[in-house]
């Protein structure tokens, strides 16, 4: 009985060792990736009309799993804060209203997405990739004067193509850096007055992040 038990353990250990060796032999090839990035957001189009400011206040977290060599699927969760201060000015509504003051516009965007990615050189130290992700965008848009806060919140469909490169820190290292650019658009639209209405938000995100790789 003891013998059988020991031989089972030995067999298991052997299997694990062999698997580890196989994985080690695969070197740069990861089986999954987790990346936490800092995001620089650039509003475009209609969104840029609302807030024309480049925002350093953003980030995202992604997880990617390789189905086969080069092809991965994954998820992405992110956040971006945009705000702009407008100098004291007078704004006229169409109904006899006029407001003078310092204004702020602010927007908060939270994408929740899934995507597919193709890595061109999974066994190289620097691995460029392309991807396409889609999902839902939670979005807030605010116009603020003193303690007044006029805002909308909504969800919209979002889609974003992505170009990037994963740089591994070593052949067997679990760490790497990820640099990417994403174009995004969503179906959110909002109206503050007859004059201020916005539809289909768009932007460009530049991400720099730290990646944890599993082999």
């Amino acid at each position, binding site marked *: 009985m003891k013998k059988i038990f020991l031989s089972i353990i030995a067999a298991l250990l052997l299997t694990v060792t062999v698997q580890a060796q196989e994985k080690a032999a695969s070197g740069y090839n990861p089986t999954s990736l987790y990346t936490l990035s*800092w995001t620089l957001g650039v509003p475009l189009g209609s969104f840029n009309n609302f807030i024309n400011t480049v925002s350093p206040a953003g980030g995202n977290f992604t997880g990617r799993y390789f189905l086969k060599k080069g092809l991965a699927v994954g998820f992405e969760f992110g*956040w971006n804060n945009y705000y702009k201060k407008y100098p004291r000015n007078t704004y006229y509504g169409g109904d006899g*209203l*006029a407001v003078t003051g*310092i204004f702020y516009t*602010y927007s908060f965007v939270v994408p929740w997405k899934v995507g597919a990615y193709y890595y061109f050189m999974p066994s190289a130290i620097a691995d460029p990739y392309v991807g396409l992700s889609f999902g839902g965008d939670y979005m807030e848009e605010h116009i603020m004067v*003193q303690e007044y806060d006029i805002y909308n919140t909504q969800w919209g469909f979002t889609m974003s193509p992505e170009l990037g490169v994963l740089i591994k820190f070593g052949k067997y290292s679990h760490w790497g850096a990820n640099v990417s650019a994403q174009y995004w658009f969503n179906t959110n639209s909002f109206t503050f007055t007859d004059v201020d209405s916005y539809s289909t938000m768009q932007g460009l995100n530049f991400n720099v992040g730290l990646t944890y790789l599993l082999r």
Partner: protein
Amino acid sequence: MKKKIKLLAMVAAVMFMISCATYPGMDSRLAEDLVVITKYDVGTNFTQYKTFSIVDSVSVISDRDSSKILDAQAQALLNQIIGNMQARGYQKVNRTAKPDLGINVGVVKITNVTYYYPGWYWDNGYYNPAYWGYPSYNYWYPYYPPAVSTYSTGTVIIDMVDLKNAPAHNNKLYIEWIALIRGLMTGYHTLQDVLDNVDQCFAQTPQIRAN
């Protein structure tokens, strides 16, 4: 290696803080600036009015009570409004001399109100319609007045009342113009700031003119 990790951790921490940065809070927004909000009745023609009268003191509406004050500051506020009205061609007359327009002035210093319905201060020690000779009348906005959720920061209210057409308005004293100057209680603004903003109230309503 340790140094590298430390540096990397610091960079990551700074990046994370930057990534969560958001807009300035309410307190700093309030301290920046006095905000001027005006609204006038687009259905009226201000050239139909030629004379005006103004209240003899400023109503101060606070948490528990209200009072009427005429100190140097209140007088300066009233004078600034009078000066602007005269510059627009209106003649100041006594309230008993059948003025076309009456002007109410109040300062709201309530600190614990989180919700307000337009005109609630009328029941709160503000000028009674009887002051203008219409005891059975009520004040009335012929438009939806600017929405104000709280007065906690201190607000000057200037209401311009149509007395000329009062009998035709069905027991209602139409407020043809409302002006609000907000942010007085932050402690950052001087009387001169307030007076300058009275000028701004008129500047953003060029429709108010006798001719």
